C-alpha cells in the first residue's frame, strides 16, 4: 500500500519523540480519575484512523499486560 509506505517513511525519531511527549503531557493533564477514559478514547480514535481490522486486532493482543 503506497499510502502506508509514504506515511511510515515520514515517521522520524524526532516526530516519535514529539508525539510521545505530547501524549505524556495529555495523560498528566487528564488527571488520575480520568486517565483510563482518556486512553480508551484515544485508542478508539487511533483505531478509526488505522482502518485495518487485522492491524488493530494484532495491537490489541500485543498490548496485553504481562506479555511484554
Amino acid at each position, binding site marked *: 500500500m503506497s499510502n502506508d509506505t509514504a506515511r511510515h517513511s515520514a515517521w522520524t525519531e524526532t516526530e516519535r519523540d514529539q508525539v510521545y*511527549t505530547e501524549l*505524556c*503531557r495529555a*495523560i*498528566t493533564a487528564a488527571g488520575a480519575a480520568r*486517565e483510563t477514559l482518556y486512553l480508551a478514547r484515544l485508542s478508539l480514535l487511533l483505531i478509526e484512523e488505522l482502518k485495518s481490522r487485522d492491524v488493530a486486532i494484532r495491537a490489541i493482543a*500485543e*498490548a496485553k499486560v504481562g506479555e*511484554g
Partner: protein
Amino acid sequence: MGLEMTGEIPNFTYRLHEAAVPPLTAGRDGTRHSVVIAGGGPVGLGLALALARQGVASVVIEADDTVCKGSRAICLSRRSLEILDHLGALDGFLSKGLGWTTGRSFYRETEVLRFDMPHAASDRFLPMTNIPQYWIEEFLVEAAEKHADLIDLRWQTKLERMEADAHGVRLDLSTGATRYTAETDWLVACDGARSKIRQDLGLRMNGTAYEGRYVIVDVEVDLPWPTERLAWFDPPSNPGRTMLMHRQPDNVWRLDYQLHDDEDAEEMTRPERVLPVVEAHFRMLKIDKPWRLVWASTYRASALSLDDYVHGRVIFAGDAAHLVPIFGVRGLNSGFEDVFNLAWKLAAVVEGRAAPELLSSYSRERHDAWATNVSHAMKSTEFMAPPSRGFELMRDAVLSLAARHQSLSTLINPRQSSVLPYDDTALNLTSPDEHSFSGPLRPGVLVPDFPVECGGRPQFLSQHLADSFTAIVFPGEGLSAEHAAAAVAAAQVTGMPIALAIVVPRTDGAAMGPSNLLVDAAGRIRKAFDADPFAVYLVRPDGYVCCRWRRASGNDIAAALHEILGVPAAADGIGAGVPS
C-alpha cells in the same frame, strides 16, 4: 552537590599545593593583570591553558589546596578530547581514560535497548571516555605547571570581594592571614554552579530549576566487564528506582540513582543508606567479588542559565554560566566547549586585534548551545526520571513493549552529548558562492575530523586546526601551494595569525611535503567539503567554519577576517593596494 562522604581513592595521590602570594606593595599585587580566572576547576584550568596557547597570560584563583574530592564529572565527549589535545594536555587522558561506544538498558530483568554511538574505525577518538574529575583536574594542573610563564596558579586563594567598572575589576583576595588587592582588565568566573561572582553581581539564572536529585556513588570492585553505559529501570534489586552504572579506571564503578521526593539528600548519602542499595544491586548482578564504598554525593539537576555570559569586564563560563540536567553528559563537556570558544576571542580582544564586541558572539553561541543541550537533556531526564504521572505511565508502557517492538526503543536512547552548530552568529559569513555549495559544512558547523597524511605520517585534520584562523585550500591547476601561501600571507593584514592547510589528493613526487600539505588520498575531505579545485574554507581557531568560497583571494579572506574581528579594514590599509 555538596553533601558527600569520601574514602581512599584507589591509585590516586592528592598533591597538596603551597599557598601562593605574589610580591605585594602596600597590600597590592604590583602587576595589573590582563585576565584573572576565578576557579581552578576543569573549566578554569582549561581556559588558562587555552589562553596560554594564544600567548595570553592569566592568573588562576583557587580556594582549595588540591584537586576535587570525588569523581564528579566522569564522562568526556570526543569533542572534549579534541579540545584537550589543542590545550596540550591529551596524553594523560588517553592513557588513563576508558573509551566506550555502546550501552544497554534493562527493564526489570529484560534487556530492552542496546545502542551503539556513531563511530568509524578511522576516528581518532571514541565517542565517550570515562575518567574521574580528580584525574581530569590533575592532568590539567600538570599541563598548567608546564606553562608557568603564562599561568600563575594561586592555590589557597579566596576571592573575598570584587568591584567591576567599565575598564576592569578590582579583587580583594585572601591567602591564609594575608589579604591583598589585585586588578585585572578581565575577570572570568569559572567558579561553578554556586558562583559567588554571579551572586555578588546579583545576576539571575533563568530556565527550569528541575527538582530531580540523584545519589552518585563510587565503588571499588574488580569486575571483568567492558566499559559501556548500563541502565536499569525498576530493577528487582531496587524496585521503583532507575540505576545507572559506568566503569571508571582503576576498578572504580559509578552508580547513579534518583532520590524519591520524600527522601532526604543528606540522610541518603550516609554509608548505611547507600550500602544496602549497592548490595542489592550487586546481588542481582551476581557479583561475588569483595567491594568497598569510595565516595558518595548528591547531585541536583537544573536547566538554568544566565541570559548573557558577558557583563562588562566580567565573563562567565561553565557551570557558573549555565546548568544542564545530568543525563547525556553535557555539563563539563559544554564547559570545555565554552572555554575553547571564549579563549581565542578574549585573546584577540586583550591583544587589541579585535573589538570587545567579538565577545558577544561567545555569549550568543554558547547560550544557544545551552538551550539546545537542555532540550535534548530534558528528553532524557523525562524518561529516566519521569516528572509527572503521564511520563511515568508512558515510560512503563514503552519499557514493557520495547523488547518485542524494537522501533519503540528509540524512546529509551539516552541521547548523549553531541556537537551543535552555531547557526545564528554574526561570525557566519555568506560569500557570493555560498549557495553553490552542497553538503553540511555550512558556516557555523564544526569541521568534522578526517585522517590525513602529512609529511609521510598519518595524522588528523583536526590537529591542523587550532590556535589561529586556518584557510583550508584545495589547489587546482595553476594554483600551486606557493600561490595559496602567498594569498594567505596577504590576508594577514589584520594582525591576526592565519594558518594555511592545503588539501591535496597526493603529493607529486616528493614524499615529504611541507607541514601544512595534507594528503586526502581517499578524497573524503574533498567530498565532505564539496570542494572543487580552488575552493577555500575559512575556519575559526575553535574549528568552526566561518565562510567558504569557490575561489578566494587574499583580499577576500582579509575582508572576512576584518568583519569577524570587528575592526575596520581601512585601519590596516587593506584597501590600499594589498596584492591579491
